[in-house]
């Protein structure tokens, strides 16, 4: 099959051109991904957009001064323009009543306009080298060549080494700047360092995804990573990994069909990862739903088990077989829920079906006793230690009985001794 051949060829690393593109996008993606964690935790997501749009005039001026499309000049121009934009945003907020978000919008559009104007000036000038300069808008990953790699590689490695060196600084200052200050950290310097990292990674990152999409390459992987981990270090690594995976996928897709743009595909894959994370990670929406369903199932099956035992509890016929309707009429439980509960319980072999009768197995009896025991112990505990009237304890015990662990049960028994009856004078069933 054609696809498999392409896949094998792509990942055999036999093609030097593909390798350059791949290595470049991986490096840039990883750099942007790890910086993204600092950006998001520093609540600076918007500034990335200001920086990226401001880089355009910098690149243009870099080109105008050098007259060639040398990556060193272009990136240097971009970095200087990015730094100017960060300075402008802060300066406007400090001298006026304009708030930061408005200030960012003003700087972003002003600088970008200058960039677009300069771009047309360059195009008018007829310099034959200028073709491809406008690729910076949407990225041009497919055209990364070896000489580009040296420049990007150097800057990427710079960023990648700075972050572990200042790891503790970032962690403490980003979590609690006031505390950081009191132990002698210079918050201002840390902010400057983070801004520098943002500017550098933005300036090199636009190579792959372009000015318009770069903020996604920085912000999205970090935002996805926070769904999976509560650890600062792991979120940095995971964010980098997400960005790398998307970059490789984007390059591969545009290799398969050369008409497809690399940058936008990188972002589409990245966004898919983000959506997936928000749904299926442990903190995700679907995961929570599944948990809720599992809890409901446990409640239903626990209740059915309990009813089956309770029907014959008083006359010691708890293990006798019962018909469906007998169980259903014992407590008002819906037929649908009862069938569902019985199905789960027979699956666990806690309930055995004999003809039209349902009866508890030995294991089922043991489990039913445990649930009822916990219910009644808890009622007693509430009455004795929480001073709650005995006619108010049942509701809470109804839910508690599903979640108390064997350890907590032991704890309860330690507090209560081994009481014979609950507040309603019903026997508490023990194992022995």
């Amino acid at each position, binding site marked *: 099959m054609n696809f498999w051949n392409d896949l094998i060829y792509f990942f055999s690393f036999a093609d030097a051109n593909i390798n350059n593109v791949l290595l470049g996008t991986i490096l840039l993606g990883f750099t942007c991904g790890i910086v993204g964690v600092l950006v998001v*935790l520093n609540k600076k997501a918007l500034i990335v957009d200001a920086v990226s749009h401001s880089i355009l005039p910098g690149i243009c001026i870099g080109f105008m001064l050098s007259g060639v499309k040398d990556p060193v000049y272009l990136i240097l121009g971009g970095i200087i323009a990015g730094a100017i934009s960060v300075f402008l945003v802060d300066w406007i907020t400090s001298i006026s009543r304009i708030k930061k978000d408005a200030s960012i919008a003003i700087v972003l559009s002003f600088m970008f306009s200058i960039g677009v104007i300069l771009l047309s000036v360059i195009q008018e000038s007829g310099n034959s080298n200028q073709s491809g300069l406008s690729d910076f808008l949407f990225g041009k990953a497919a055209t990364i060549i070896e000489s580009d790699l040296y420049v990007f590689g150097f800057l990427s490695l710079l960023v990648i080494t700075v972050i572990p060196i200042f790891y*503790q600084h970032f*962690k403490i200052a980003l979590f609690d700047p006031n*505390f950081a200050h*009191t132990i002698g950290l210079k918050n201002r310097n840390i902010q400057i360092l983070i801004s520098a990292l943002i500017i550098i990674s933005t300036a090199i990152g636009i190579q792959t995804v372009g000015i318009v999409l770069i903020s996604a390459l920085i912000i999205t992987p970090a935002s996805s990573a926070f769904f999976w981990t*509560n650890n600062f270090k792991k979120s940095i690594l995971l964010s980098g990994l997400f960005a790398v995976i998307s970059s490789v996928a984007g390059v591969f897709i545009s290799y398969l069909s050369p008409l497809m743009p690399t940058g936008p595909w990188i972002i589409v894959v990245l966004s898919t990862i983000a959506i997936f994370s928000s749904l299926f990670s442990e903190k995700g929406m679907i995961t929570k739903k599944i948990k809720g369903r599992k809890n409901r199932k446990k409640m239903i099956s626990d209740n059915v088990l309990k009813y089956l035992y309770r029907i014959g509890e008083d006359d010691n016929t708890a293990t006798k077989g019962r018909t469906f309707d007998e169980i259903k009429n014992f407590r008002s439980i819906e037929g649908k829920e009862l069938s569902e509960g019985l199905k789960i319980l027979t699956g666990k072999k806690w309930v055995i079906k004999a003809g039209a009768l349902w009866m508890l197995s030995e294991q089922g009896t043991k489990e039913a006793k445990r649930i009822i025991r916990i219910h009644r112990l808890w009622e007693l505990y509430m009455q004795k230690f929480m001073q709650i009237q005995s006619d108010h304890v049942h509701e809470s015990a109804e839910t508690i009985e599903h979640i108390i662990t064997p350890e907590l049960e032991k704890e309860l028994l330690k507090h209560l001794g081994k009481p014979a009856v609950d507040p309603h004078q019903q026997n508490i069933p023990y194992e022995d």
Partner: protein
Amino acid sequence: MIEQVENPILEVHDLTVAYSNKPVLWNADFSIPKGKMVGIVGPNGAGKSTLLKAIMGLVPVASGYSKILNDQLKNVRHKVAYVPQKESVDWDFPATVLDVVEMGRYGKLSLFKRLRKEDKQIAVEALKKVKMLDFADRHISELSGGQQQRVFIARALAQEAEIYFMDEPFAGVDMASEKAIVEILYEMQKEGKTIFVVHHDLQSAMDYFDWMVFLNTRIVASGPTEKVFSTETLQNTYGGNLAMLQQIGQIYKEKQFPIRESE
């Protein structure tokens, strides 16, 4: 009444702080002896947190200075621990309870170094003291307000300081947690630490603290609780002439009257 002391652990001299030209702290001048449990009380907006922040160098000072252990803060940082208001941080930050407490060790250690075994042990001990060891590996967003506060106090304990500044450690904390925190503070005091607490409840302040600072833009009183806690002090702090000032402020505002004639 402001009782000045010999060899104070904290000396605040004519400290004035202004936010955009509006003074929030006027000529604060007082001193605190070592080993005391000190409560700073005063109405909302009296400048309690500002006083703490000014001492910790977190806000610029218009005039005056403060000295800790007869030295500038920057020379004695490792002997000072600060507990900010718990609302001042984002509790969604990716860190566990133990991570936060371990940050306390970096006050003594270079930030470029890894924590040693003994540092980790100290952090664990601090968590044990505030009865949060069972939560060591939990994400900080899973904690209740009282637990968050205890984590902050554990971080301060891990700093092994001489003097502790705490900004509203009892705000948004349930009664049981408040009692637990007070017990921890008494424990610390027994070990000879000085504790300086911003507090908003007068009733309990009288029980908790053996030295009190009454503040309302200026220092109204500072001294041993039994000496300074009086109706007169309370009136000066919470009512009286300041209500007058407020009324005058209201008139200024309603009439759009200039504050100074020359304007």
